[in-house]
C-alpha cells in the first residue's frame, strides 16, 4: 500500500491505484470528466491534471499511478488555473445553452421551462414549488412583472413568446385559491435572530427564505401595513391588496414577525438592532443622504455603501439589499436580492463566513440560425399565445396548459447531470474566454431511448469504448482527427443501430448532454 501526500495530506491506497483514486479517498473533488469506473482512462479532458513531485508537467490524475512517497499538488491556484483552462477550452467547442434564455434573462433566474413542463403535465403544485424556489411572491409578481423573461423566449422567433408571466401567476393563484396554500419545509430553528428593516419586496423575500433556513426574522416598517411600494406605489387595479396580503400572510405563517409603524434610525437605532439581533438587513427602499445618516451607513453612489459581492455594509453584520443599495425599477430584482441576502446572511450566521451568491453556470449561445431553431420548433404546439398580463382575470386551467405546452424546451436536457457544467460552475469558468466560431447546435432523436446532441460532445470517447467493449455490431466510432474529431455511428448509421444494448450505460457515462437517455431528459422535473 503506497503512501503519498496530496496537498500535504497523507493517504495510503492500493498498489496500482491512480492519483485520482487517492484524491477521492481524501474527499478531494478532482474534475474527471472522461473518467469512469471500470473503463480504461481516456486521458482526454485533462481537467483532472495534477502536479507531481514539483515537476513542470501537469499529469492526468486519472491515469497516473501512485508511487510511494509521491507529492501531489491538486488544490493549488496553479493546478486550478490549468483545470479551468481545460474546462474553458471544452466549453469553447461545445454548442448548447445550459439554461434557457428566459431563465437567464429572468432577474431571479427562475427555472421557467421546468415550471412550464410541470404545468403542461397538470402538476401545478410542483410547478409552484419550482417558482417559489426563486420567487417569493409569485402571485404579486405574476401581476406586475415586466415580462423580461419573455424577451428571451426562443419561440418569439417562430411566432410569439410563451406567456410565462401569466403562467407564473396561474400557479400562484391556484395555490392561494386552494385554501391550503403551500408552506415549505423549514429547517430546525437556529436560535439566530435577524432584523429586516423595510417590509417591501426585498425584505419580504429575505424573510421568506431566512425563515426556511431556520432563522427568526423580525420585519420593521414605518408604515402601518407591510408591503412597501407594492402596497403604496403600485396601482390597486394591477395588484389588489388581497393578493398582496395573502402572500405576506404566508411569510407570517412561516414565523416572521412584523413590527410596524416603526422607523429605524429614529425610534430605534441600528446600533440597538445590532445589539438585539444577530444580523440586520436594510431593505428600506431608496435612500437619500438624510436617511443614510439616520441609519448610520455611508452612501456610495445612489445607495448605501456595501461590499457588492456579499451585500454587507461597512458595519459588521449589517447588510443591505434592494432599492436601498441601488434604485430598482423592477420588483423582481428586489425579490432576487432579498433571496441572495438571505443566503449570504445564512452563511454569516452559521460561522461568520461571507460567501457571494453565484448565479448557476450557463452557456449563452445567443442567436440561433434558422436551421438550429428548427430543432426546437419542429413538432411544437401550434397554439396561439394568450396572456393575462394587465388583466384582472388570470388564465383558465385549459388556457394555462395549452400555453405551457407552447414551450420549446430549449434548455439543456441534462442541465443538472452534466459534469462539464458542474465543474464549470465550481471552477468559475468563463465560457467566452476562448471564443471561436462555434459549432452547430444539433439534436438527433432517431434512437427510441437516446437524445443525441453532437454539438455538445467533447470527444472524450467513453461511449466509443463502452460500445466497443459490449461488441455492439455497429457501435460508435471516432470520425476524423484533431479539432474536427467527432463521434458518430459508422457509415452514417443511426444511433438506433449503433446502440442496441448499451444505450443506458453510454448515456450515463457521457459527461455532457451529447447523449441523454430520453427518460432522464430534464430529469429534475420528474
Amino acid at each position: 500500500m503506497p503512501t503519498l501526500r496530496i496537498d500535504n495530506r497523507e493517504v495510503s491506497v492500493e498498489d496500482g491505484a491512480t492519483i485520482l483514486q487517492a484524491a477521492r479517498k481524501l474527499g478531494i473533488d478532482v474534475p474527471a470528466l472522461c473518467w469512469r469506473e471500470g473503463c480504461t482512462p481516456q486521458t482526454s479532458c485533462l481537467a483532472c491534471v495534477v502536479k507531481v513531485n514539483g515537476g513542470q508537467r501537469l499529469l492526468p490524475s486519472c491515469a497516473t499511478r501512485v508511487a510511494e512517497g509521491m507529492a501531489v499538488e491538486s488544490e493549488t491556484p496553479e493546478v486550478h488555473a490549468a483545470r479551468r483552462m481545460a474546462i474553458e477550452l471544452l466549453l469553447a467547442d461545445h454548442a448548447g445553452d445550459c439554461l434557457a434564455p428566459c431563465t437567464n434573462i429572468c432577474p431571479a433566474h427562475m427555472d421557467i421551462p421546468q415550471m412550464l413542463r410541470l404545468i403542461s403535465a397538470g402538476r401545478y403544485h410542483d410547478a409552484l414549488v419550482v417558482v417559489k424556489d426563486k420567487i417569493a411572491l409569485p402571485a404579486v409578481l405574476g401581476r406586475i412583472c415586466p415580462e423580461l423573461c419573455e424577451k428571451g423566449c426562443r419561440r418569439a422567433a417562430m411566432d410569439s413568446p410563451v406567456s410565462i408571466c401569466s403562467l407564473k401567476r396561474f400557479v400562484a393563484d391556484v395555490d392561494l385559491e386552494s385554501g391550503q396554500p403551500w408552506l415549505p419545509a423549514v429547517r430546525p430553528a437556529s436560535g439566530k435572530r435577524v432584523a429586516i428593516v423595510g417590509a417591501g419586496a426585498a425584505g419580504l423575500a429575505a424573510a421568506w427564505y431566512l425563515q426556511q433556513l431556520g432563522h427568526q426574522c423580525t420585519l420593521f416598517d414605518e408604515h402601518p401595513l407591510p408591503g412597501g411600494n407594492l402596497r403604496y406605489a403600485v396601482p390597486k387595479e394591477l395588484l389588489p391588496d388581497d393578493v398582496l396580503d395573502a402572500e405576506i400572510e404566508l411569510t407570517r405563517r412561516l414565523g416572521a414577525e412584523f413590527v410596524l409603524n416603526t422607523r429605524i434610525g429614529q425610534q430605534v437605532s441600528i446600533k440597538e438592532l445590532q445589539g438585539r439581533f444577530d444580523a440586520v438587513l436594510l431593505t428600506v427602499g431608496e435612500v437619500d443622504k438624510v436617511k443614510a445618516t439616520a441609519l448610520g451607513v455611508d452612501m456610495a453612489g445612489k445607495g448605501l455603501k456595501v461590499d457588492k459581492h456579499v451585500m454587507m455594509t461597512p458595519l459588521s453584520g449589517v447588510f443591505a439589499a434592494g432599492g436601498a443599495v441601488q434604485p430598482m425599477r423592477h420588483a423582481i430584482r428586489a425579490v432576487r436580492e432579498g433571496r441572495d441576502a438571505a443566503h449570504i446572511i445564512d452563511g454569516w450566521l452559521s460561522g461568520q463566513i461571507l460567501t457571494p451568491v453565484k448565479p448557476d453556470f450557463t452557456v449563452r449561445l445567443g442567436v440561433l440560425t434558422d436551421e438550429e431553431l428548427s430543432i426546437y420548433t419542429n413538432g411544437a404546439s401550434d397554439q396561439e399565445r394568450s396572456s393575462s398580463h394587465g388583466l384582472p382575470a388570470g388564465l383558465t386551467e385549459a388556457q394555462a396548459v395549452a400555453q405551457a405546452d407552447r414551450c420549446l424546451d430549449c434548455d439543456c436536457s441534462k442541465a443538472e447531470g452534466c459534469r462539464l457544467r458542474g465543474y464549470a460552475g465550481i471552477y468559475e469558468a468563463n465560457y467566452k474566454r476562448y471564443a471561436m466560431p462555434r459549432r452547430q447546435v444539433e439534436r438527433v432523436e432517431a434512437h427510441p431511448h437516446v437524445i443525441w446532441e453532437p454539438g455538445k460532445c467533447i470527444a472524450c470517447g467513453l461511449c466509443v469504448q463502452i460500445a466497443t467493449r459490449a461488441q455492439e455490431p455497429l457501435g460508435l466510432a471516432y470520425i476524423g482527427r484533431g479539432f474536427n474529431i467527432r463521434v458518430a455511428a459508422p457509415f452514417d448509421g443511426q444511433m438506433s443501430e449503433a446502440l442496441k444494448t448499451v444505450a443506458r450505460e453510454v448515456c450515463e457515462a457521457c459527461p455532457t448532454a451529447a447523449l441523454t437517455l430520453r427518460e432522464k431528459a430534464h430529469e429534475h422535473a420528474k
Partner: protein
Amino acid sequence: MTQTLEKVEQEPQVDLLFVEEAVGRIGRTADKMIPILQAIQEHYHYLPEPALRKVCQLTEITPSAIVGVATFYSQFRHKPAGEHIIRVCHGTACHVKGSELVHDAINRHLNIPAEQDTDADGKFTIERVGCVGCCTLAPVVVIDTATYGHCAPDSVGNAVADFLVSGAGSQDGQSEQRQDKVEGDSVPEIRIGVGSCCIAGGSQKVRHALEQAVSRHGARVMVKPVGCVGMCHQTPLVEVVYKDRPSRLYAKVTEDQASAIVREHFPPRGLWRRLRGAVHTALDHLLTDETWQPVTRYSIDKRDGPVCDFLSRQKHLATEFCGDIDPLDLDEYMRYGGFGALRKVLGLEESHSGNGHNGQAGLTQLKVKAAAGSPGIVPEQIIQTITQAGLRGRGGAGFLSGRKWAAVRAAKGEKKYIVCNGDEGDPGAFMDRMILESYPYRELEGMTIAAIAVGARQGYLYIRAEYPLAVKRIRQAIARLEERNLLGDNILGSGYSLHLQVMEGAGAFVCGEETALLASIEGQRGMPRLRPPYPAESGLWGYPTLINNVETYALVPWIIRNGAEAFSNLGTATSKGTKVFALTGKVNRGGLIEVPMGITIRQIVQDIGGGCAEGRKFKAVQVGGPSGGCIPAELSDMPVDYESLTAAGAMMGSGGLVVLDDSDCMVDIARYFLNFTQAESCGKCTFCRVGTKMMLEILERLCEGKARPGDLEKMEELAQVTRRGSICGLGQTAPNPVLSTLRYFRHEYEAHLKGHCPAGKCKALIKYEVTNTCIGCTKCSQECPADAIPMVPYQIHKIDNAKCTRCDICRLVCPVDAIVIR
C-alpha cells in the same frame, strides 16, 4: 485506372471482387487494417463505403474500427479522385519559398473552384501534403510519382504540361534496373545520385542517357547509381571516379550533357566507334546550333572552395561512404566493411577487409569459424558499448539509447519486438528518408544488432507513405538479406533470428510519437497514450518493444566497428557523435549534412550552407520543425547539441534546419507550424485539440491584422499550459514555435497587433506597388490572374489593391524589378 474510376462514378454498385482478393492476399486480422485500406485506395483511388463494409464482413475488423482508422489518416480519400493526383508540398522549406502561391496558381491553371479539389474533367485532383522530403528543391509539387522542384506561381503550369507529355515514367520508369556488371578492380565508375531529390532533379533521365552513351561508345566504365551525396542543391550530380586518378564531379547535369561527359572521359575505342561518335557529336552541334563547349565547364573539383566548404566540415558516420556506394548492392556494401559490425557481434572473424568481391563465399567460410566457437559480443556488452558511446536517440528527445536498450533487455515478456521509427513527418526534414534510401543495409544491420542486444526476434520498419522509394529499397534489401541468411531464422548459423517487415504509414505526423506509431502498427488510429508504461515495458501488443529512430540504428554499425570511444570523442560533453541535418530554406547550398555535435549554427549556415541566397540577410534558423523553435541570427555561435537547443527554446527534433532570411515573417512562421500541428493533432486531449486551435485562431488574427489587445498574453498562457499538460510529444512541443518566436521576435508580434507586417509577408497587411522604374511593358498586366493591373502600354502600371490577390506573379515576371511589396 480511368475505367475503374468511371465505373465507380457511373454505378453506385462498386465491384467488390477486388476487396475479396485483397483481403485474401493481405490477411483477416485486425492488424491488417491499414494495408487493406491502402490496397483498396490504390485500386479504387478512394475508399468506397461498400468496400469498407465488405472488409468488415470478411475480416475481424469492426465498422467502428475501420471508420475510425479510415478517417484518421490523411492518405485516405473518401470521395472519388481525379485520374492524377497533384500533391503540393507544404513543408517548411516549401512554405517559406511560396508553396501557398504555387498551390493557388495550380488551382487557377486547372480552373479548380474554391472548396473543391478536382478539375472539371476529373483529370487532376490537388492535395496538400505535409512534406515530401525534397526540401532543397522547394517549392515542390508531386504529380502521381513525378516530382517537380523549384516551382513558381508563374511556371507551375509547365510542370503540369511536362507531366501530360512525359508522364510519371520519365522519372522512375527505369528506376531500379541495373546495368550488367563490368568486372574488374580497375574499372572506373560514373556515379549518379538516385536519392529522391536527385530523381526529382531528373537523375533517372541522366542515368539512362549515361547508360546509352556508355554502350554506344563501348566505354569500359560502370554507370553506378549511388545514394544521396547530400549536395542536394546541385542535383543531379554525376561523379566520374577512377581508381588511380582524382575523380571529377559534375553538378546540375542534364540529359543532353551525359553523352559529352562520357566522351570527355572515355574516348571511343576503335575506328568505327570513333566515327560513330563523331557523327553524334556533329549531330549534337546541329541540334543545339552551338559551338562545342567542353563539359569541364560544368565540372567541380571536390577540393574547390564551395564544395570543399560544404563537405569538409562534415563527418560521415550514419552516412558513411555517401555518394560512393550503390544503395542496393549488397556485395559492395560488404566490400566497404558492411556487416562487419554484425560479424563482430556474432564472433565471426573478418577474413578480409575492404577488398574482394566474394562476400558470399567469405560468409560461408565465416560460418564455419563461428561454429568453431568464436566468442563474439554478448548482448550486455553491446548495450554497454552503446551506453559508453553516449549515443542518444536521434528522433528528437535524445534519450540515452543504451539505457533504453537495457530496459528492453531487462523487461519480461514471452517475446519482444524491435521497431524502427521512420515516420519522419517533420516538414523540412528528410534525413531518415535519405538514410533509408541510400543505406538500407546499414539500417538493417543496425537493427539486427539492436535486436540481438535486446532479445527481439520480430520487428517492423514503420516508414511514412510519402517515401515510396525508401519503402521499396528497404523491402528489396530485406529480401536480399533473407536470401543470404543475414536476416530471418538462425542468422549465419548464430542461433539468432530476426524477421523484419515494412509497415507503411498512412499520413499522420503524430505517428512519429512512439505510442501512436505502435497503435498504428496494430491497425488502430494513431492516438498516443500516456506513458508510463513505456514501450520498453509494454509496447507492441503489450510486449516489450525497442523503438528507435532511423538515424539511431544507422549509427550502430559504426559504433560497433570503431568502438565506443571513437564515437564519444566526437561531439560535446553530453551530446556525442554526429547528427544528420537537412539544411534547407533560404540558404545557398542546401542539402543533407552530417556534422559533429557541437558545431555552431554559424558554421552550418555560413560555412557549409554558404549563407543566405539572393544576398538576403540571415535572420533565424528554424530547428526541429513543428516541435522546435526559431533561433535568431544573434545566437549563431551557439553550439548545436541537445541541451543548448532546448535551452534556447528550440529542440533537436529529428534534424530539420530551415534557414530564414529577412523576408520571412516570424508570426507567419509560427502560424505555419501551428496550422501544421493543429491539423496533425490526433484530437485526444483538450489542450492539444482545442488549445492549439485557439492559438492558431489568434495567430490568424495577427496575420490578418485583426488581433485584439491581450491576445498575445492569452496565447502565451495557452502555450504554457499546452506544453505542460498535453499527454504526448506532439502537444507538449506544439507551442515551441510560438514561444520561441515570441521570445526572440516579440516586436514582430507587436507590429502585427498594430496591423503591420515588418517582413512584408502577411497577405492582408501588404500591398503591391509599382515603382518609377516600370517601363510599361505590360507583362505584369498580362500575367495578373486577378485583372488587377490595367493594360496600359508604355505607362507606369498601377495595381488595384482591392482586386489584387497578392499572388506575387507580377513581381516575379517584372523584367526590371519595378514591383515592390509595401
